[in-house]
């Protein structure tokens, strides 16, 4: 460069400028049409297919939208009895998991990528030996399986290798419930509560509205009994007696915070009140005895319509006792043989066999015992080294995968054939929405390999299951089952068993000083969803915590130890210790702490590693859900803890923002909309002649805070993830947030209030925008024009509802968090919604793309829009159908009818913003006998 003269440099510079100016055109774009156009495809118009997605081994029926071959959205299948047209957050989040670049993409040997053929070769060699010795030493470890095909294959496998064994490891298994049922009925039985038929639901720590495969069904059932409408008020009542806060407790009409010992005593007292003989004395305090008497009185007054549910942390005897109570109450509970195969034992049995060197070939599929095993089992390299051949099969190279000799990548449920049973027993088929992205194989395919057919097609194997005697579907029926997403009449029959035996209950143990209760994580489940950034950043229903977990305790215990939220403690339980941040949360019994499982992963993807703390190690085999004698000591180290609770606070009087009403004292007419007559400076809008006035009404009474709507909104509207560092700067991007309000004083009951954009008719955001980016359309939608927005953030500051979100960085546009910017991740985006750039404001649009689509469709068919033509993503997902959306010009529309209800109210009505989003207040139905003592 030394010979570059100044003159020459200037020449080159000007030549460059000239070239840039001349070449500054749009790059040419190519159009690639099909060579042979597939039937039924219309480019750019999504197709919907019915399928089934797994959670904890059970299936939830879904409809998947495929946009030009890419699955981009999951919604509930109305024909499927376990989803009833709704989804949960895990189903919604599957779309992101499908495109996760951290998914395992190739087979591995000792961590190094290898060809599938070498795995096949190694397995085939071993199988040759195993065939000769009847499968001695062949061991299978899976997660819970309800798939009729997989269960059929395992039965076949047992026929071929009589000495093989199959173990099931479900870290969230309710072991006490199964042994309690054995105690009560003498046979393995699963009790399935029909929550929709329960007028009185009493939970002893149980969380039927919490995360799990039955969440959608239970929530819908709860809402059926709770929905308050003029002339048709369902008068269900929910009593929650629990030691740690839960979503069920949040929605309870009466919630009592009791220690685990007191809950056992209450169960005994209830049984005694129902004339159970030979029970030890419950020794309840006088006040508690009165409450129990009132609850039992209420249950007796509703024969056949009351259920008592016990939680996993209660001992088996108490589960047996609740069976006895439910029988005495003639409770609406279906008894049936367990849907998931029980196998030859659990993880502990496999560990014993490994220690005794009785395992030759071990296939681990769909579970991650190295991470999820209780602390007194170490499922480590030394233990696994005792088997001759270990094969790991999962969607990720997990903690367990890293210790196995071979790894085979699993296919995502959206790219595989299969079948599953829903929680209520109905079978449905999973069909692939897309060809496999990588060289993955399903469990079905692997089991078929063990049966000697490595190259069989999954479709043929699943189809064969449904051609067997008993489940024979003709080709027409099979196609119908695929189309509908349900195999009709496939639920197993309920069992008619004799009355349950009354268990022998030991006298109550003296109360423990402190107990740690472990809970399923409401957004990460057992940890298998931990690499999903949508779920990591989804605020937990009660704590609003994101990117991690923390130790919950009540304020008295915290003060005694001199702790406040955010402090870090050293938690010791079962002889093992971890560091964990503290969160003070109402609703914890004295001496009781809670911590969720599923965090603190060591391997399994860029998103999940090191987020939160792993609580699995604190468990013991004997008592996986409750650890007695846990102790804490303040630590000088600081662990981060993130929550969105205080990020968007509405300024105003609590009772105005979140009114709660009592069913008996409900006003007969809707209170006058408290709109003040303050003169407005805004130009008047006249919507009287518009074809539509879009509006939404949200029923806070039936909202259980489950987050299905939050995730659905995120998927539908390309809402970006910002990551923990940005969350710490209060830059959460969710268009729809669920605000929580503590009801009563520290009794753990919580009101949930989903807050999307209010689409105010006189919107405060509009006059302050200097560039007209925030304006109204003729139907009253408050629209945000991204291309006009220059990022002043005046609108955000002026919004009293705090619903506007600003792209401080290119969260979706070049500055994505960790692996979210990978090329393949673009595939999950909804092409009907703009991906926002850095520096622009965004917010809920009422799913304007869906409104537009429905309007164009109606206009093409020359008909007016009908109620129900437009459903927003949040409304569509809601398990309790707590959201109504529609056109106020239509007086018969659901949203218009809801606005006529007595509990209808307008958020911050005195500001005269005339919001289009309004609410139905939370109505609770306390027992009149207890209401005086403890009203809402």
């Amino acid at each position, binding site marked *: 460069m030394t010979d570059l003269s100044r003159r020459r440099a200037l020449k080159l510079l000007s030549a460059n400028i000239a070239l840039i100016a001349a070449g500054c*055109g*749009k790059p*040419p*774009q*190519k*159009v*690639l*049409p*099909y*060579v*042979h*156009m597939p039937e039924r495809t*219309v*480019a*750019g*118009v999504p197709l919907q297919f019915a399928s089934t997605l797994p959670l904890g081994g059970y299936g939830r029926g879904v409809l998947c939208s495929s946009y030009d071959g890419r699955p981009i959205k999951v919604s509930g299948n109305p024909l499927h009895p376990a989803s009833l047209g709704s989804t949960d957050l895990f189903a919604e989040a599957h779309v992101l998991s499908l495109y996760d670049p951290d998914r395992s993409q190739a087979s591995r040997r000792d961590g190094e990528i290898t060809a599938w053929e070498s795995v096949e070769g190694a397995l085939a060699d071993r199988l040759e030996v195993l065939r000769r010795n009847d499968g001695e030493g062949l061991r299978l470890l899976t997660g819970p399986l309800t798939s009729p095909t997989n269960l059929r294959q395992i039965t076949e496998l047992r026929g071929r290798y009589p000495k093989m064994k199959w173990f099931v490891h479900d870290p969230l298994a309710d072991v006490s419930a199964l042994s309690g049922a054995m105690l009560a009925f003498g046979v393995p039985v699963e009790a399935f509560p029909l929550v929709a038929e329960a007028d009185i639901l009493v939970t002893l720590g149980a969380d039927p509205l919490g995360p799990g495969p039955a969440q959608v069904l239970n929530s819908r059932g709860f809402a059926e009994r709770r929905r308050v409408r003029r002339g048709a008020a369902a008068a269900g009542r929910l009593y929650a007696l629990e030691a740690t806060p839960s979503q069920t407790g949040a929605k309870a009409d009466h919630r009592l915070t009791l220690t685990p010992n007191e809950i056992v005593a209450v169960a005994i007292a209830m049984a005694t009140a129902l004339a159970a003989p030979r029970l030890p004395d419950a020794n309840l305090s006088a006040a508690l005895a009165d409450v129990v008497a009132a609850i039992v009185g209420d249950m007796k007054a509703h024969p056949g319509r009351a259920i008592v549910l016990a939680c996993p942390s209660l001992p088996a005897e108490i589960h047996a006792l609740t069976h006895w109570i439910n029988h005495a109450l003639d409770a609406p509970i279906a008894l049936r043989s367990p849907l998931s195969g029980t196998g030859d034992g659990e993880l502990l049995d496999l560990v014993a066999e490994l220690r005794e060197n009785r395992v030759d070939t071990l296939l681990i599929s769909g579970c991650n015992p190295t991470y999820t095993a209780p602390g007194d089992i170490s499922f480590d390299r030394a233990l696994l080294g005792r088997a001759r051949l270990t094969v790991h099969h999962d969607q990720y190279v997990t903690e367990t995968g890293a210790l196995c000799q071979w790894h085979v990548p699993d296919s995502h449920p959206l790219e595989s054939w299969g079948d599953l049973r829903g929680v209520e027993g109905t079978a449905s088929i999973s069909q692939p929405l897309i060809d496999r992205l990588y060289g993955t194989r399903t469990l079905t395919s692997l089991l078929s390999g063990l049966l000697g057919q490595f190259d069989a097609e999954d479709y043929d194997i699943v189809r064969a299951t449904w051609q067997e005697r008993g489940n024979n579907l003709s080709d027409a029926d099979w196609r119908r089952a695929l189309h509908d997403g349900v195999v009709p009449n496939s639920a197993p029959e309920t069992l008619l068993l004799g009355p349950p035996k009354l268990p022998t209950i030991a006298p109550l143990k003296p109360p423990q000083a402190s107990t740690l209760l472990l809970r399923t994580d409401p957004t990460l489940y057992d940890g298998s969803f931990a690499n999903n950034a949508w779920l990591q950043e989804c605020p937990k229903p009660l704590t609003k915590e994101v990117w991690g977990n923390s130790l919950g305790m009540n304020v008295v215990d915290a003060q005694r130890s001199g702790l406040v939220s955010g402090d870090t403690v050293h938690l010791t339980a079962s002889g093992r210790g971890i560091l964990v941040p503290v969160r003070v949360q109402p609703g914890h019994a004295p001496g009781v702490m809670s911590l969720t499982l599923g965090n603190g992963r060591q391997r399994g993807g860029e998103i999940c590693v090191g987020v939160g703390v792993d609580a699995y190690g604190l468990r013991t085999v004997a008592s996986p859900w409750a650890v007695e004698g846990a102790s804490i000591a303040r630590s000088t180290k600081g662990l981060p803890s993130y929550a969105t609770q205080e990020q968007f606070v509405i300024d105003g009087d609590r009772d105005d923002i979140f009114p709660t009403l009592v069913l008996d004292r409900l006003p007969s007419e809707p209170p006058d909309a408290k709109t003040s007559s303050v003169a407005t400076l805004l130009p008047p809008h006249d919507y009287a002649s*518009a*074809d539509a006035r879009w509006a939404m009404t949200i029923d806070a009474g039936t909202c259980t805070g489950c987050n299905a709507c939050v995730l659905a909104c995120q998927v539908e509207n390309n809402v970006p993830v910002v990551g923990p560092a940005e969350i710490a700067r209060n830059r959460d991007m969710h268009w729809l947030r669920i605000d929580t309000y503590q009801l009563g004083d520290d009794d753990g009951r919580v009101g949930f209030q989903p807050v999307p954009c209010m689409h105010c008719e006189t919107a405060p955001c509009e006059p302050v925008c200097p560039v007209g980016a925030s*304006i109204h*359309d*003729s*139907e009253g*939608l408050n*629209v945000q*024009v*991204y*291309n006009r927005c220059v990022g002043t953030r005046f609108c955000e500051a002026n919004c009293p509802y705090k619903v506007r979100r600003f792209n401080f960085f290119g969260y979706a546009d070049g500055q994505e968090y960790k692996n979210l910017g990978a090329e393949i991740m673009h595939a999950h985006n909804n092409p*009907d*919604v*703009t991906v926002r750039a850095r520096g622009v404001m965004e917010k809920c*649009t009422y799913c*304007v*793309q869906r*409104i*537009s689509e429905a309007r*164009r469709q109606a*206009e*093409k068919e*020359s008909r007016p829009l009908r109620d129900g033509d437009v459903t927003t993503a949040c409304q569509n997902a809601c398990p309790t159908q707590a959201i109504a959306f529609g056109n106020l010009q239509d007086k018969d529309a659901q949203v218009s009818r809801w606005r006529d209800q007595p509990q209808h109210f307008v958020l911050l009505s005195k500001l005269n913003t005339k919001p289009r989003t309004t609410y139905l207040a939370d109505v609770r139905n306390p027992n009149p006998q207890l209401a005086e003592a403890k009203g809402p």
Partner: protein
Amino acid sequence: MPQIFDPGADTVVRSLFIASVGGPVFFAVLAYAIVRSPYSTGQDVVVTQPVPFSHEHHVAQLGLDCRYCHTQVEKAASAGYPPTETCMTCHSQIWTNAAMLAPVRESLADNKPIAWQRVHRLPQYAYFDHSIHIAKGVGCTTCHGPVGDMPLMYQAAPLSMQWCLDCHRDPAKNLRPKDKVFALDWRPPADQIAEGHALLTQYGIKPEHLTDCSVCHR
């Protein structure tokens, strides 16, 4: 004391004053002119295609309907591009050895799509839908120009937002009866204004809604 400024200095100062005001105006006008010019919008630019497909020949001379190839124009946002097999319905019988059709034959033989160059290009934040325009009586040639006279395809309109809004503000001038939507030779009749307003009512078009941002941007 000697003169610091020579007599020409006044002229220099005056020119500088004029340039300081006029310069920005000039550059603003120039920039606007460039942005609106075909150089920037791509209007009237003939794009080279792998196969020199002539709409003039196929549509005007042979009389193929637009929808023979653009099959989904009445159903979807995108009008749709014909798959190779559509070309081959005829060209497996006629002009089977024509050199200019070699890419079509290769496409079928190799099962590889023909890579056409896009002619009409809207920004991704504009959600245009062909089907609703067809349903509401906006003809193909209204936006695509005299397709029947185009041996090679070019973009006849600027496709700017101003151009879109021209029609969205006053659609009556461009509306046709349903049976004339695909006509190549449609010219506005003398009483188009009256005719157009009658069609507005017939199609149920409310122009006041058509300029909402949310109609095109989401």
